[in-house]
């Protein structure tokens, strides 16, 4: 019970999960700024309302400029400032694609699992065909065995990434719309059937993090999660070699 209460207080003071991506701190900082502005405006408005209600009756205010237009101008400036700040962060993370050296990983959302595909040593993803999808036979993505590029593709149920290297995720969905979300990476993007959507980010801190589905996708929506393992670069190389050997064998 005491533990619960301490936990409750800790959550309210800064409830966000650990921030382990390169663009995350700027996002958190901007969010915190927004929250502080919100709380301030909230308190101010309620204070004015309460003082106005409790004070003695006076003749009605008349200066539309002082009461309406000046505060509106101030709010317009404030909102413009926040919009521009947010736009700069958004542009930095979304307006351009990943760098050419980024690690390529394909993410596929299926009711109710995430699959992660690495292109293997040939650095090219093999062709997938929906008609070949057969999870029971170990081919959940419908990899086409006649395509030479698909032979070395590694399919994993865990997303494993090296710390400090940018990753370029290509998001796909096989059946319905899914929401790919890694709260600790401050990343969220829907995977839409018929589309391939790229998002890129750089994990910074090794550890294990939750991957959730954040778009209602059916009865198993709540359990459609996976784990992101961020490894130091050396360990990642070892993991990758082991995977490649397993695939080729």
């Amino acid at each position, binding site marked *: 019970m005491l533990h619960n209460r301490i936990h*409750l207080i800790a959550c309210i003071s800064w409830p966000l*999960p650990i921030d382990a991506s390169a663009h995350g701190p700027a996002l958190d900082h901007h969010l915190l700024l927004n929250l502080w502005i919100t709380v301030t405006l909230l308190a101010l408005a309620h204070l004015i309302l309460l003082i106005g209600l409790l004070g003695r009756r006076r003749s*009605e205010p008349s200066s*539309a400029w002082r*009461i*309406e237009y000046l505060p509106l101008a101030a709010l317009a400036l404030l909102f413009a400032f926040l919009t521009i700040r947010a736009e700069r962060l958004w542009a930095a993370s979304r307006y351009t694609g990943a760098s050419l050296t980024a690690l390529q990983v394909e993410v596929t959302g299926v009711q109710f699992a995430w699959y992660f595909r690495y292109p293997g040593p040939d650095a090219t993803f093999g062709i997938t065909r929906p008609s070949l999808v057969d999870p029971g036979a170990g081919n959940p993505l419908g990899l086409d065995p006649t395509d030479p590029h698909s032979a070395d593709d590694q399919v994993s149920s865990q997303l494993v990434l090296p710390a400090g290297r940018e990753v370029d995720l290509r998001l796909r969905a096989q059946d319905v719309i899914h929401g790919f979300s890694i709260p600790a990476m401050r990343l969220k993007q829907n995977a839409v059937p*018929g589309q391939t959507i790229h998002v890129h980010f750089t994990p910074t801190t090794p550890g294990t993090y939750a991957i959730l589905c954040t778009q209602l996708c059916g009865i198993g929506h*709540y*359990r459609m999660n996976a784990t992101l393992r961020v490894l130091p670069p050396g360990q990642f190389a070892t993991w990758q070699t082991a995977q490649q050997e397993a695939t080729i064998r």
Partner: protein
Amino acid sequence: MRAFPNRFLRKCLFSTDHRIIGIQYLVLALVSVSIGTVLSLLMRIHLVWPEWPLPLHGPILPEDYLALVTIHGTIMLFFVLTTAPQAGFGNLILPSQIGARRMAFPALNTASLWLTAAALLILLSSTFVPGGAAISGWTAYPPLSAIAAAGPGQGTGMDLWLISIAFFAIASTISSINFLTTIIRNRCPGMTWERLPLTVWGWFTAALLSIIAFSVLLAAILLLLCDRHAGTSFFLPTGDLVSGVLHRGGDGSPLLWLHLFWFFGHPEVYIAILPGLGLTSMLLANFSHRRVFAYRTMIATTLLIGFLGILLWGHHMFVAGLNPFASSAFSVSTMAIALPASAKVLSWLATTWRSRPDNTTAMLFALGFVSLFITGGLTGPILAQPILDEYLHNTFFVVAHFHLIMAMAGIFGLYAATYYWFPLITATRKHPGRLLSEPLGRLHFWCTLVGAYATFLPMHFTGLMGEPRHYAQLTGIPGAGGALSPAGVLLAHAIPLNLCITYAAIFLAAAQLIFFFNLVRSLRKGTYASENPWQATTLEWHPALNPFSPLPASDQSEISVYRAPCEYQPAQANDSFLPQWEPDILTQMKMKDATHSKPE
């Protein structure tokens, strides 16, 4: 005696009298809100006590939970927040506020009421078909909503959901045409546009939005029904594979549905709140015995909110696969709407500022509306920034935001309207209207205000923790590691606060029993109201428009308007208020001078 059923059908059930239709809409909304509230309590209880078996049903399964989500959202948005303020109080009050005795198309009005009732019955019946009700939420994103194999409830349940909403869309469009025509054509002499009460401006703007939004929704629903049954592929891409069912047809896009749906869906939330915005302005002025501060600006902001409201649907799609440049544009248009909304808040603060208002229950609920509108509104600009939405999208932060600004503020507007207009609801030819009990009303207000904040404020925190919406369970997450997996740990963090939320939600719902008690008691035993109990200046309190009219042959008497609403003379005694209908040449001239010399 044999004529009785016929007469009953004609006079009550299928009446074309706008007052009776308004009351019928309100009864429908009251039934709906009761069902919707019970469903939300079941969700709250299930989230924190997942093993609790629902009596006569058994444990709540994930599909049950999602059906609860879907029906709760659909009922509350369509059949409560759209129906009650717009169709309910609109029909009841709008004609008299513009000095009219009837709506422009009384028969159409009856038709839209019964279409709405049919829509509600179809929606509720979807719970009892094989597979149960739809599980895709009120937004019904395809392919989940396009393919029956996508989940239980996505077969017949989904079809019934779509048909229900199609009926509702037709009813709302008809009703809105009726409202617009009535406001444009049926105003009494002297009721210029500038003298229209802000409530009428709210109904007018909401009706404009309804026509635009619901016609698009209807089109989208027909397209989706075609995808489901006619082999088209508007929303289905080639090669879509759902539960082993491969779509070999044409190459459509699920994003098209998102565009069409949110083109409807965002104006829809303004449709729900615009009448409340207008009513709040009028009530604050009424009980503060003052004019509405910056009346013309308030008219302009109402229209501006309506106009901007149709330009920002894309803010629901920042992470949905929209072009990132489009997200930036929608971010700017969304931020822009914060300004007319802020202008309204400033006007409310100025109207009540040091006015020593009469704190009647109606006034308290209007003030509660202001508070909730501020609290819920301030998180709007946060969610309007795509980079922040990237973290907050579909978390409980969003749930907190729209429940405060739309659901709670909307309900507070409805309560303010109910306490304020109760004498007009209950008046008949035989006896004057009754008042709801004020002491019970005040108790109801304070419990509801505390309950609303206690329920929805903590959701901001669970949202910041990362708790996603639409999760049927926070515990018992299967998979590698189970509760110890990173996802399990993340969700488990939110459980203690969720327990608090559930207790608060139960308190909030229980507090509404005070209202029900007050309602039932006052319908029979409430004190009779005087002709104009709140010293109101607007026409619905005109003695000739009151069903219980002391004047003989009041149906024929001429109604004219001589001034803007909310003309109070604060310098004089308390009763110096000037209803819009009172011809006072001297005052009228004085007013004219006063307005001319005012630098508005």
